[in-house]
């Protein structure tokens, strides 16, 4: 089984560590990810705020490209690690399958630019692929350096499981927890697994965005987490990169490593720091590991 890989814009810049570690983990598991050729931005939340139909048209080009790249596959699985890309592409795929008239407009426009779309694409999150296609048993076989005693707060964020919960329980998701436990880590139970990190508000209405992220970091700390694991480049960025500013703003030292779940997996698999993009972290993970 092969998968097309849709990185999205963030995984090529602020979230590059996510791309590096995801590719490394899938490589270790002998499940190659092939990048979608000439993919374009999914549109994220901002495009939808301006124009609905164009937002769907923009995202739909990626679906058509995926079919073009795998013309003989009955089903084309596209793996989108960024939660926002995952949601936008999934929503677009649903929109085009709904037969509300507008789906035809978009399909016609796609055809007119030489990208006919039949509807064979499935949008998958890597957590879904790891758990349900590859399976915990196989993954466990690759663990070389278990994350002994590392207390992890798994943080799922919003858009991976809302409004569409395609592979996990949106009220108390477990997929990341299961993976971390399989890596030998210890997961903490906390009630904010899917509470919003502030998303783009950290960049626009900073006082609100930072507060939302700060709430998450403090609660993870209060519950004894050594590290927060994320599955979204924006969540990771918000939680990690503003900790200095939060410390100033709230007169409260914030120092909590925030990594991608795939970085933790790669560590357990024995990949190098560099292969996993760990050197790019603002808040290093070493002290937490050293204490164990």
């Amino acid at each position: 089984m092969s998968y097309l890989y849709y990185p999205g814009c963030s995984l090529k810049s602020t979230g590059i560590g996510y791309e590096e570690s995801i590719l490394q983990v899938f490589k270790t598991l002998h499940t190659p990810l092939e990048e979608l050729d000439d993919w374009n931005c999914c549109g994220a939340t901002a495009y939808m705020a301006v124009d609905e139909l164009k937002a769907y048209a923009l995202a739909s080009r990626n679906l058509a490209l995926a079919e073009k790249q795998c013309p003989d596959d009955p089903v084309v699985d596209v793996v989108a690690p960024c939660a926002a890309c995952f949601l936008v592409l999934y929503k677009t795929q649903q929109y085009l399958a709904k037969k509300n008239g507008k789906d035809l407009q978009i399909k016609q426009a796609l055809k007119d630019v030489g990208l006919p779309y039949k509807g064979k694409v499935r949008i998958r999150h890597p957590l879904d692929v790891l758990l349900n296609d590859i399976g915990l048993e196989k993954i466990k076989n690759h663990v070389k350096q278990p994350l002994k005693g590392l207390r992890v707060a798994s943080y799922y964020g919003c858009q991976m499981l809302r409004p569409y919960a395609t592979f996990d329980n949106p009220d108390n998701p477990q997929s990341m927890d299961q993976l971390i436990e399989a890596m030998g880590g210890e997961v903490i139970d906390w009630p904010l697994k899917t509470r919003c990190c502030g998303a783009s508000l950290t960049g626009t209405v900073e006082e609100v965005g930072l507060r939302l992220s700060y709430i998450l970091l403090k609660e993870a700390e209060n519950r004894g987490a050594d590290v927060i694991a994320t599955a979204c480049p924006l969540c990771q960025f918000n939680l990690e990169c503003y900790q200095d500013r939060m410390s100033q703003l709230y007169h409260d030292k914030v120092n909590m490593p925030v990594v991608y779940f795939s970085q933790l997996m790669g560590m357990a698999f024995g990949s190098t720091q560099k292969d996993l993009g760990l050197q790019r972290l603002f808040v290093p993970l070493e002290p937490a590991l050293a204490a164990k």
Partner: protein
Amino acid sequence: MIAFDYNTATPRIGVYICHCGINIAGKVKVDEVAAFAKTLPHVVKSCDYKFMCSDPGQELIQQDIRELGLNRVVVASCSPLLHEPTFRKACADAGLNPFFFQMANIREHVSWVTPDKEAGTEKAKALVAAAVERVQHNRPLEKKQVPVNANAMVVGGGIAGIHAALTLANSGKHVYLVEREPTIGGHMAMFDKTFPTLDCAACILTPKMSDVKNHPNITLWSYSEVEQVEGYAGNFKVKVKRKPRYINEESCVGCLECVDACVFKTPRFDNEFDLGLKKRKPVYMPFPQATPTVVTVDPKTCLQLSKGKCAQKCAEVCPKDCFDFTQTETYEDVDVGAIILATGFQVFDGKRIPKYGYGKYENVYSSLEVERLVNASGPTQGELVLKNGEKPKSVAIIHCVGSRDHKTNKYCSRVCCMYSLKLAHLIKERTEAEIYNFYIDMRTPGKGYEEFYDRLLEEGVHFIRGRVAEVSDWAMTPEEKGKLIIRAEDTLIGMPRRIPVDMVVLSVGLEAHKDADEVRRKFNISCSHEGWFHERHPKLAPVSTATDGIFLAGACQGPKDIPDTVAQAGAAAAEAMAMIDKGVVELEPNTAYIDEELCCGCRTCVGMCPYSAIKADEALGIAVLNEALCKGCGTCVAACPSGAAQQNMFTDQQIFEELVGVLNYV
């Protein structure tokens, strides 16, 4: 009765188009339909009239039968379910066999389902043409009368079943009361006080329970379930399964010496009656006033029954030698004339809304659990305490849990606002805690209910209009530490709030029993997609069902409180009594018959008949139908390859002619 040879006499048809006020006339040009009907062959009179079902409307038909010599009548109006009996009777009173009457439904099938007056008029004409064509082939039929069995059965021993059974028994009918639990009493027996008067539930219920036990006209079968129902109104045959108690019910007096002697020294199994808040032993009585006052042995936890090995101390100490570990299921077959279903409800499972933390946080309770906790005979002797044994200083009561919610139950459960007020009062009285009621809308319509709400407002209970978004243990301030935090918008103030409390009560809604669909099939009645049993008419036949002789009482028909339940139980008993006291039931003459000339003896129908009404006559080589057993389902008619099986009121000819009527018009 007007006598004529319907085979040779020329049909003289009268057609009447009803306006039903503007119900029909608003969407159908009734005068045009009447004028059209006049053009149809054999129609000697056609007119439209404001309300055909009124006395003058019926008088019009009767006058025309007498003066114009009508021998067929067609009324185009509402559903036959509503007024077919009315018009049949009008015809009969004027001397015409009532089965020469035919009804066309131009209300439910036309005016109520179209906004288009032109299309409505056209369809009405087609339906009238069909009825005119069909009525010419109707045959005079006689309704048969059969005697009614004077006994009744009540299924379910909650307050609805108890009240219905006592009412029937007091009127001299013999009643079989079937209850599936070891005791009667239902949910009401679990409550502490009842709203709005705050009278003690046990004080008013237990006398009625012992009345049931002691009534000479009541046979109480507890720990029993209806297995099978056959027959029809006035003559039901019911098979009841009696589950083994492993106790001789007749001799046990409930002395409880066996419970003390049980090899399990301490109670360690969840007592279902206390929702698991109190433990019991394998041999137990659910609560002290249980009726019948006998013990039950739980086969799942009893060592003798589950492992086959026990010292049997219980049996040893029993002074009346009641134990019998070899008991098995037994069956009782009884004949009854009427059945009242009073099977009640189940409460919503709070776990289905994970955001409220039920099952996750130990101090989140369901309202029914709190009923037990505040009950003086409950697991804590009426002390409302937290899991750590302390009294709560603040309590949140969340309304509408599993009600008014498209993801769980869309309907309003009707009783939760009032019982939440009651619990707020009781908790305040016992703990002096701050109480916060989170409600969407306060619904207190009932005698003395709004006054009770007033009283709670005076008592200083907080009312916050807003549906709770989340219950969590995520503290943001020092005061919130160690508490359960309620997050909700105070919608009247327009601001989100966080309120820390010690205890949360989920006012869970009422649901139909999980097996409601199975039960309704057994009794051949219908239910809504939520599982509530359907009444025949929401206003005018609220305790009857579409199946004659089967009546409804209490919450199995929909959520309702105790006063409404008791009123309905009384009504159901009265309806059953009216049927029984009449002594006879009339059967619709829609039975099937076999045309002996056409029957080829293939026996297809014999195997198909669900009522075993058809037998093969070996000597004649044909099928013979027992009319007394036939229910008129039509299965044999559809199955018969030679057209020998026909059904009165639905002969092939009648149906084909009806089609011809429509097609000729179209």
